[in-house]
């Protein structure tokens, strides 16, 4: 390496960073070093933000990644995605199929592996019926891949036991949107960040879990000095660095705080009466049978003082938050994620955030919107929209609705009655059924339940039992799931295949294939079609090109609230993401749903500015939801709250960051303890502590930090050697069936 070469690198580094400082839109000409042969447009593989990336390819390998300056992230990337070339070429990439023989996973041919999988699934269905098999998918799979699995299992095998990991992260947000507005998915968009005056961030460590959106919030705050940021989180996370007000509270008590905020807003006359009259209905339980006066009386019980008593959050802070949220002529944008969703009252607490927007009319205007953040890159597009859960069918249809089943049966060319009328099992129930041997064969694709399920040890036993058959399609091995499998199928990863991702803001984007799959790896689309043919369902998978699958999906969306008929493959290829609804090829896409003049599904002659067309009365529902405790609270035996979450440098179960040498520095999950708690337990940073819950125990290194409130212990979820899910509880929300990862009770013992 010559000095001039080093100089060239330094100039390149300086220029790319300076371009961002001076004008955020200028291109960062990252990694021209080494000279990629070509740059291929794609989308980041990690969180649900859906940042545009350019994949640098040299001699058939991914050698560089840079931000797409023409996409919403304007060329910026977080720490993780910049290192993705290392992950693509990681030493634990699985390059050929494995079959368990004499207790050990051993190399096999594709034909042997697929014959075994098809044979065992066929045999199980014949002996025990279709509900003895199951599919467990992922919000990271491509839309087309989830669709093939959905079609194969629901119409081919004829079981609705087809669920996926979005059940573990977004199900409560889905049920929150559906119960309030009648339809899933946020109505706002990222551009709302640039118009908001108040950010209400609850149950989200945006700075670490969605860093590029955090950067955009931070930028907005800098651009307009009156912009305020409110953060509600039991922990003082990195997100609080830009907060004007941080409300810390005992885990699980935020329903009381949100109701108290509504109470303050009503009492201080900060509601939008006209908006409520035109657009809002009121309900309790599942019935829309209440009035505004009923609601007013309901929240009156939640005085700030009462909420303070329940939550441990100062009453004055609750009042301040309510006033900031509701102040007239200012736009308020809420953001939330797992802190609300992963709860046994996740749907209710989602409803309560929507309530605040609906009573103040801060919705459907630039900068005013309730905006749930998504954890995975295609939980929205592939699974929520595509109907890849056990109670869903594509594009807003549900299993329980006979008309919806008939529509899909007709589209799929299968006889009426093919799709079972009864919804299948949701994730936790599905793995409990595996434990009970009601499910005997399971196909896991693109996810790692052997680490990610709550109360994971009990389900690991079920997955590894001799009399259950577990197939895992995965790009890496070993993972905490592949190590339990009977067959492991090597799947192509990210830039090795083509398909569509749909991110948080209803933005669908095409990932172009940049390189060939490594070793013998195959795209999941190809693997699933092969399985379908071997099971005798070739008629369901007649496609020869991915584009044909997409056309089938477009047709299924036509006439629904998700209509993306105008998103042709070529249009997707030419764009940097398109937002639905988009009912025609000439439509530009929809930034704000339900809004006249923006949403094509609201007629031009609709007499009001907004129409919540997901509900028959065109009104959104404010629900009366009381404070309810979590499934498990501390007691004398287990005196601490335990909570889990993400850190900036890692993602999910670590399969795509742990193997990146550059990201290994902070891989170990440590137990974060408040200094007072540490003192009383005679623990200091670096000590070892055994944490036990009623479900299991795990040893961690201690980190003493005042980020944790007293009585609360935090550990991140990414470490396969220190698995927080040995402790978490598998209690679920009764509506969304999402587990309460965020709260359980533990005890600590110095080791």
């Amino acid at each position, binding site marked *: *390496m010559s000095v001039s*070469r*080093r100089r060239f*690198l*330094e100039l*390149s*580094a*300086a*220029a*790319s*960073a*300076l*371009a*961002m*400082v*001076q004008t955020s839109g200028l291109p*960062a*000409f*990252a*990694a021209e*070093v*080494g000279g990629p042969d070509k740059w291929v447009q794609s989308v980041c593989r990690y969180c649900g933000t859906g940042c545009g990336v350019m994949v640098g390819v040299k001699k058939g390998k991914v050698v*560089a990644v*840079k*931000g797409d300056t023409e996409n919403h992230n304007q*060329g*910026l*990337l*977080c*720490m993780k995605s*910049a*290192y993705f070339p*290392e992950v693509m070429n990681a030493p634990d990439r699985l390059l050929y199929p494995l079959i368990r023989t004499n207790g050990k996973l051993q190399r096999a041919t594709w034909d042997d592996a697929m014959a075994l999988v098809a044979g065992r699934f066929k045999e199980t269905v014949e002996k025990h019926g279709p509900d003895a098999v199951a599919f467990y998918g992922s919000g990271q799979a491509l839309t087309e891949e989830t669709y093939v699995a959905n079609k194969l299992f629901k119409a081919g095998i004829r079981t609705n036991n087809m669920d996926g990991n979005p059940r573990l992260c977004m199900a409560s947000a889905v049920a929150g949107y559906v119960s309030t507005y009648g339809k899933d998915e946020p109505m706002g968009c990222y551009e709302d960040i640039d118009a908001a005056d108040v950010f209400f961030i609850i149950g989200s460590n945006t*700075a670490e879990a969605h*860093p590029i959106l*955090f*950067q955009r919030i*931070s930028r907005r*705050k*800098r651009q307009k000095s009156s912009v305020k940021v409110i953060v509600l989180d039991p922990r003082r996370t*990195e997100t609080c*660095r*830009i907060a004007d007000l941080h409300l810390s509270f005992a885990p699980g008590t935020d329903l009381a705080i949100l109701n108290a905020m509504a109470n303050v807003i009503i009492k201080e006359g900060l509601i939008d009466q006209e908006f409520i009259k035109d657009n809002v209905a009121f309900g309790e339980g599942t019935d829309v049978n209440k009035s505004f006066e009923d609601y007013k009386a309901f929240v009156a019980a939640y005085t700030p003082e009462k909420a303070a008593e329940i939550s441990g959050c100062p009453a004055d802070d609750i009042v301040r938050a309510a006033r900031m949220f509701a102040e007239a002529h200012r736009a308020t944008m809420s953001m939330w994620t797992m802190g609300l969703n992963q709860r046994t009252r996740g749907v209710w607490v989602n409803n309560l955030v929507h309530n605040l927007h609906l009573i103040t009319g801060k919705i459907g205007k630039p900068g005013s919107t309730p905006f749930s953040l998504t954890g995975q890159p295609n939980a929205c597009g592939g699974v929520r929209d595509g109907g890849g859960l056990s109670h869903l069918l594509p594009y807003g249809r549900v299993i329980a609705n006979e008309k919806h089943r008939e529509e899909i049966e007709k589209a799929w060319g299968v006889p009426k009655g093919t799709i079972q009328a009864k919804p299948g099992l949701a994730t936790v129930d599905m793995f409990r059924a595996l434990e009970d041997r009601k499910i005997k064969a399971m196909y896991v694709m693109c996810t790692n339940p052997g680490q990610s399920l709550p109360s994971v040890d009990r389900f690991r036993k079920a997955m590894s039992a001799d009399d259950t058959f577990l197939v895992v399609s995965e790009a890496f091995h070993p993972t905490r799931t592949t190590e339990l499998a009977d067959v492991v199928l090597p799947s192509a990863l990210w830039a090795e295949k083509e398909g569509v991702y749909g991110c948080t803001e209803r933005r669908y984007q095409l990932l172009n294939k940049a390189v060939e799959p490594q070793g013998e790896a195959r795209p999941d689309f190809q693997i699933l079609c092969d399985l379908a043919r071997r099971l005798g369902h070739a008629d369901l998978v007649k496609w020869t090109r991915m584009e044909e699958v997409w056309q089938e999906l477009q047709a299924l969306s036509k006439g629904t609230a998700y209509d993306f008929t105008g998103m042709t493959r070529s249009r997707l290829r030419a764009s940097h993401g398109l937002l639905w609804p988009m009912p025609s090829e000439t439509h530009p896409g929809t930034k704000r749903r339900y809004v006249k003049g923006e949403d094509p599904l609201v007629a031009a002659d609709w007499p009001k500015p907004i129409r919540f067309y997901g509900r028959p009365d065109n009104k959104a529902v404010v629900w009366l939801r009381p404070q309810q405790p979590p499934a498990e609270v501390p007691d004398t035996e287990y005196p601490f709250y335990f909570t889990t979450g993400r850190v*900036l*440098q890692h993602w999910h179960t670590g399969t795509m960051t742990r193997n990146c*040498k*550059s*990201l*290994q*520095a*902070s891989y170990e999950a440590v137990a974060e303890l408040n200094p007072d708690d540490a003192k009383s337990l005679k623990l200091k940073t670096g000590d070892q502590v055994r944490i036990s819950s009623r479900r299991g125990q795990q040893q961690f290194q201690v980190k003493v930090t005042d980020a944790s409130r007293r009585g609360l212990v935090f550990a991140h979820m990414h470490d396969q050697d220190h698995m927080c899910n040995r402790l978490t509880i598998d209690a679920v929300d009764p509506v969304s069936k999402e587990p309460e990862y965020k709260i359980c009770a533990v005890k600590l013992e110095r080791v």
Partner: protein
Amino acid sequence: MVISGVVVETIMGRASAVAARLALVNGIRVAGSDGDHTLALVWRARCAEALQRASEQLLHSDADIVGIYPTFVGRE
């Protein structure tokens, strides 16, 4: 040797103070600033892992820093 371009975002008005602190860190050169909240750095490190470790440490230890975003990673 890894040479990286990095954008550092700070709390408003703290860019100069952060720049002064970063200038003392071995391997960091402050290439530019908007004078208020954003810095452009050239950061040299022995390897990518060392660079990553150092940036994590900075992010967590300097309360004026709100975000660190790589724009370029080149290797000698």
